[in-house]
């Protein structure tokens, strides 16, 4: 069963179409990465799932219920870390963690103590005096200490140092409740690569990609560098007109190009005839992958 399902959701703020026919499926039990450039609609989608915003049109299902209508009952089964953490300045971090846990019906004291220690949080400080990272930790501990089915995390590690980031990753991999689902919005590609079973990429309010990282890689280009014994004119003539070749450059026998992954076999067959003396091919790095998805209009 899908833990989250959004179908053709439109959400506008005046003239801004924050979500513009957006789709999202998150399977129960998976860690789902949610990526996209700034202002693409990630936080809007998550706040919509929380019933804080009402969609203009489209269908939304969350844990089998309607996120707007059934908000309070559904919220007992999920935990949320907001993208921008704002806490009550005159409550201490410890008070906020307890309060948020109790609203949801109680907190496991052992998990709470364990997380406070793992994240090195001083729970006696008032929230008004915490640094940004420490405020983030309070929200994170409050969310992770609850035993729920779904975690909606909007850039949960922004502002955390690498040690804390590592603690977070350990929690997702090893300590999170059995079978729980995580929707993880993030700009940290290494985090996404390390944790996520599947990812969805949103751009300008629309989903442009969804699948495992391997799937995504498959849909993009491989960089090919080859040295050939043939002269440059011959090489150029041989490759001209072949499908799936981009950014070809040729200089004194050295050939550099990007090839669509599904056209790779055909291109290599032609290369073989040119007398290849050396060949390197590497799949796109994650950065290349995302730059591609963030930056160009999908076809």
């Amino acid at each position, binding site marked *: 069963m899908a833990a989250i399902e959004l179908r053709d959701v439109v959400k506008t703020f005046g003239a801004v179409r924050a979500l513009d026919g957006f789709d999202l499926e998150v399977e129960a039990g998976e860690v789902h990465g949610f990526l996209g450039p700034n202002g693409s609609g990630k936080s809007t989608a998550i706040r919509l799932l929380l019933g804080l915003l009402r969609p203009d049109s489209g269908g939304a299902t969350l844990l089998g219920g309607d996120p707007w209508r059934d908000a309070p009952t559904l*919220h007992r089964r*999920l935990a949320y870390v907001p993208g921008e953490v704002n806490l009550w300045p005159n409550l201490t971090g410890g008070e906020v*963690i307890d309060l948020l846990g109790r609203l949801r019906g109680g907190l496991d004291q052992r998990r709470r103590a364990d997380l406070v220690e793992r994240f090195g949080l001083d729970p006696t400080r*008032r929230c008004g005096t915490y640094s940004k990272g420490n405020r983030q930790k309070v929200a994170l501990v409050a969310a992770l200490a609850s035993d729920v089915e779904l975690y909606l995390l909007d850039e949960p590690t922004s502002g955390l140092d690498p040690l804390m980031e590592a603690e977070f990753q350990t929690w997702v991999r090893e300590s999170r409740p059995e079978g729980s689902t995580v929707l993880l919005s993030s700009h940290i590609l290494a985090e996404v690569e390390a944790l996520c079973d599947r990812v969805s990429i949103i751009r300008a309010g629309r989903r442009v990609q969804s699948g495992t990282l391997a799937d995504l890689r498959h849909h993009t280009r491989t960089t090919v560098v080859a040295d050939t014994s043939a002269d440059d004119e011959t090489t150029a003539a041989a490759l001209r007109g072949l499908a799936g070749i981009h950014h070809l450059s040729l200089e004194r026998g050295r050939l550099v190009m990007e090839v669509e992954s599904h056209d790779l076999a055909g291109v290599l067959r032609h290369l073989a005839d040119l007398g290849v003396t050396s060949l390197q091919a590497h799949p796109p790095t994650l950065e290349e992958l995302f730059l591609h998805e963030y930056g160009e209009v999908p076809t």
Partner: protein
Amino acid sequence: MNVGHAPDVQRPSAAPSSDGSAGPFTGTGQLFRLAARRDRVRLPVWLIGLTAVIGASTNALVGFYDTPVKQAGYAATVENSAVSRLMGGTPYDVDTFGGILAYEITAVAGVTVALMVIFLVTRHIRGEEESGNAELVRSAVTGRHAALAATLALASVASGLAGLLVAGVLALSGVAVGPSLLFGAGLAAIGLAFTAVAAVAAQVASTARTALGGAILVMLALFIVRGIGAVEDNWLTWLAPFGWQDEIRPFGERAQGWPLLVSIGFAAVVLALAAWLAARRDFGAGLLQARAGRPTAAGWLRTPMALAFRMQRGLLLAWGVGLVVLAAVFGAVGREVRTMIDSNPEVGQVILGQIDDVVLGYLSFVTHFMGVTVATYAVVSALRLRREEESGRADAVLAGGVSRTRWALSGIVVTAGCSALMAVAVGLGVGLTHGLVSDDMARVGPLLGAALGTLPAVWTLAAVAFALHGWVPRWTALVWLPTAWAFIQAYLGDLLDFPDGISGLSPFWHLPKVPAESFEPVAFVVLTGLALALTALGVAGLRRRDLA
């Protein structure tokens, strides 16, 4: 790859001072313009509001005291009146036309100007830091004292304008220009003095809100000290900026400018203190550091209502102390009222309406006035709900399995309950002190009842805030319009004699003046019903809209 040095580029410096280096005041000009721009709506609203109220009051008074006989009558009244002295200070030259006008408006004008600069200074020094707006600005090339200096400059300009406008109103009413300007200058000096007070509070307090509360408390304390000094006719008046203004005595033979210098000297010393403190304070923090708190939440902090109450505890306490002191002062003064009104029944009627027993009339006026003050507290408390939403803190509660209705009701119940508590405190404060000074405890019960009787109007104003919050959240602050109107109506309504349709915009106008008039269950029930309906409307609106 070439990782050699980038060629030296001539960089334009952001704000060069004359010798090319950054002094402590570098950038003050830019910061001043920025602050003025951010206040381009707020400041004019304060100034226009002040001018309108003062203008309406003087306009109503003009025909009232146009003959020497009437002027002498006024003088005889206020010189022996404790209430007048408490609010207006030592009466000088109140047998002149200018003196009378000035004496009637001085309390409202002085307190308004003081509040205006206190809000302004706190907002620009601490509010901007807390919202993070200031950080970007401060990281640009600005001197150590630039932010403080820019804020103070803006507050001084605002005070000066307020003084000029009020002087203009007086002059237009037929008072000579010179004395009017002198009075206006005194008013501006009050603004300057409280600018300095607020600047110090902003350095010391640990949050913007406590800075604001602290400065206002100091202002009220100084106002009461001056009032007591004027009642007792002693040196206490010299302890407060309000008293220094009185000593200018602009309208008689004894007019003198030098008390202005006292204000300016006071402001200079206190500002120096503020600058000295500012250099010792961290950005975004006060000198009084928040103490370490509890590592875990108290057992009772487990519902949205407990949270709402916890967040408003400080507000409740601060207002509670302020209102009880005010109520006690009003109650204690009650005994002196008879002397005052006996000496001039005509004035008694103007201030208190057509009521036979003057003391009862006075107490009814006090109850009414204090009711409006409690309503101000209720509105502040009601606006907290909007603040919770705007800051995003409501998200955390709502994502925790709390329905919107329950979240809203938590705030609403806290506001309604705490304002009822406040009314009880006010009623007892007036009743007990009045009982003590007049040796007659029989009025305690009726006065408590009278205070409770104002609650429907208090709740109605809070409910306006809830309704606005539900449907037009960005305009929630508009609730201050009916609240300000309720004040004007309570303080000046009988004098200005508005048409009923306009007076009726204040919910308090619909309630009988208890204890002089008898309690009216119909008005009580209808207004309470209106408050409930507005609140329900607000909750309905909140349930169907996006949250910020």
